[in-house]
């Protein structure tokens, strides 16, 4: 297979991150852990648990200052909040005003945030800006580094959006979610987000107006694909080296979108038939827009949400989805019935790219060679909800 650096980046040249320490942020159903790696990514030091017993949906490092962490938290009893650390997790402070929906007018039933699910930092040009997606579906923004949050745009209470969001009963098992909040790296006004359910949405005016991006996407048989409510995007990623290109792992397949086209192309049709193209996470290469990785799961019959046939594997494309290659070296060869959630697989910016995923059974795996060989770097964690990385200086 060709090495990544042999391929030219399209549109934006992004240099590989120099050898620096890697931080892996692991969010689980029972707390958060930080794994500090060396520059070779061979030895790892566990720092945790943080917030033992809290349901942590996402932990993200602010790439603009390299030291501020945000963690989306709740517990079995307590309502949702955001914790902030400005010293890489040594101390934490709760947000003064976590994401919360507007109070409903008298006589109407309002919504309450169950948990913040997704965190996205703004561009370097917008220090302090963060976006949050919640369950049930809500979009929020902070302009002070995550201390205070306000509903963003008009979608949370827009009757049309509320119809597309459906009810809690229409959502995924852990509640319907707004996720995949993407800020175009070239333009702060160009935003995407997705809802499970509720489809894919794009704004080119900083969130004042939104347009649907559903063309080409399949839906479950028997439903009307013209209805946004029945669309279930699982994870969308934009290519840093070519922001005209997005990839999507959907409830109904794997897709690629090359803007300005508005039609998604189902590149998952090229996956092996016995594996299929159902799954949750998707990772894009930091410098090669033709390369992406997915982690297929069993979406047949009753949707077991396990690795197909109990044989976990990562699939990679190096040609924008024309072909896919199976990578399972080092992973269990059989009887491994875990899978990987939509936020629980990611990459770093090194060369070759390091890949990381956390399993529903609490194992953290990594590959130093873009997926060819895998090593388990932590076991016996709680169910892993999200994995993120950052390069520390």
């Amino acid at each position, binding site marked *: 297979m060709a090495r990544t650096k042999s391929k030219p980046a399209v549109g934006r040249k992004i240099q590989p991150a120099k050898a620096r320490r890697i931080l892996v942020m692991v969010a689980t159903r029972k707390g958060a852990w930080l794994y500090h790696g060396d520059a070779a990514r061979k030895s790892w030091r566990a720092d945790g648990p943080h917030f033992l017993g809290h349901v942590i949906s996402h932990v993200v490092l602010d790439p603009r200052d390299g030291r501020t962490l945000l963690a989306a938290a709740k*517990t*079995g*009893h*307590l*309502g949702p*909040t955001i914790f902030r650390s400005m010293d890489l997790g040594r101390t934490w402070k*709760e947000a*003064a005003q*976590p994401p*919360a*929906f*507007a*109070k*409903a007018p008298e006589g109407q*039933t*309002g*919504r*309450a*945030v169950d948990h913040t699910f997704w965190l996205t930092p703004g561009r370097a040009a917008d220090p302090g800006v963060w976006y949050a997606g919640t369950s049930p579906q809500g979009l929020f923004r902070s302009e002070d580094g995550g201390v205070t949050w306000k509903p963003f745009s008009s979608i949370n209470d827009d009757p049309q959006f509320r119809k597309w969001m459906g009810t809690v009963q229409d959502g995924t098992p852990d509640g319907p979610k707004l996720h995949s909040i993407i800020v175009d790296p070239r333009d702060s006004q160009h935003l995407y987000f997705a809802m499970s359910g509720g489809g894919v949405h794009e704004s080119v005016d900083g969130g004042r107006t939104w347009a649907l991006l559903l063309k080409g996407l399949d839906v479950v048989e028997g439903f009307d694909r013209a209805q946004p409510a029945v669309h279930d995007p699982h994870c969308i990623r934009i290519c840093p080296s070519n922001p005209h290109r997005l990839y999507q792992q959907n409830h109904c397949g794997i897709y690629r979108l090359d803007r300005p086209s508005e039609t998604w192309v189902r590149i998952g049709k090229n996956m092996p038939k016995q594996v299929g193209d159902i799954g949750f996470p998707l990772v894009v290469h930091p410098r090669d827009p033709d390369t992406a990785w997915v982690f297929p799961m069993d979406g047949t019959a009753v949707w077991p949400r396990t690795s197909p046939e109990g044989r976990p594997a990562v699939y990679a494309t190096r040609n924008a989805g024309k072909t896919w290659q199976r990578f399972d070296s080092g992973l269990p060869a059989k009887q491994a019935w875990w899978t990987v959630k939509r936020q629980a697989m990611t990459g770093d910016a090194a060369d070759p790219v390091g890949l990381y995923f956390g399993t529903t059974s609490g194992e953290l795996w990594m590959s130093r060679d873009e997926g060819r060989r895998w090593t388990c770097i932590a076991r016996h964690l709680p169910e892993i909800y999200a994995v993120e990385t950052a390069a520390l200086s």
Partner: protein
Amino acid sequence: MKVLIPSALRSYTERSEAEASGATLAAVLADLERNYPGIRFRMIDEQDRIRRHIRIFVNGEQVRDLAQPLNASDEVIIVQALSGG
């Protein structure tokens, strides 16, 4: 009045009892929030509903309405419901 604080909320109060005042349960919770910022939202959602796995008792009786009048001698107990573990 005395308010008993469950273990899940003692990261705010740092003890099992807190003093708060107010003529209603809502006012007592607002007083708690003034002294322990952030504590109210962990118990009461943005629609002023008591969260699903939080229970509040006044003198041994469960209270579901934040407008419940209270006296200075009342004892308020906030507990974690068994369902939320």
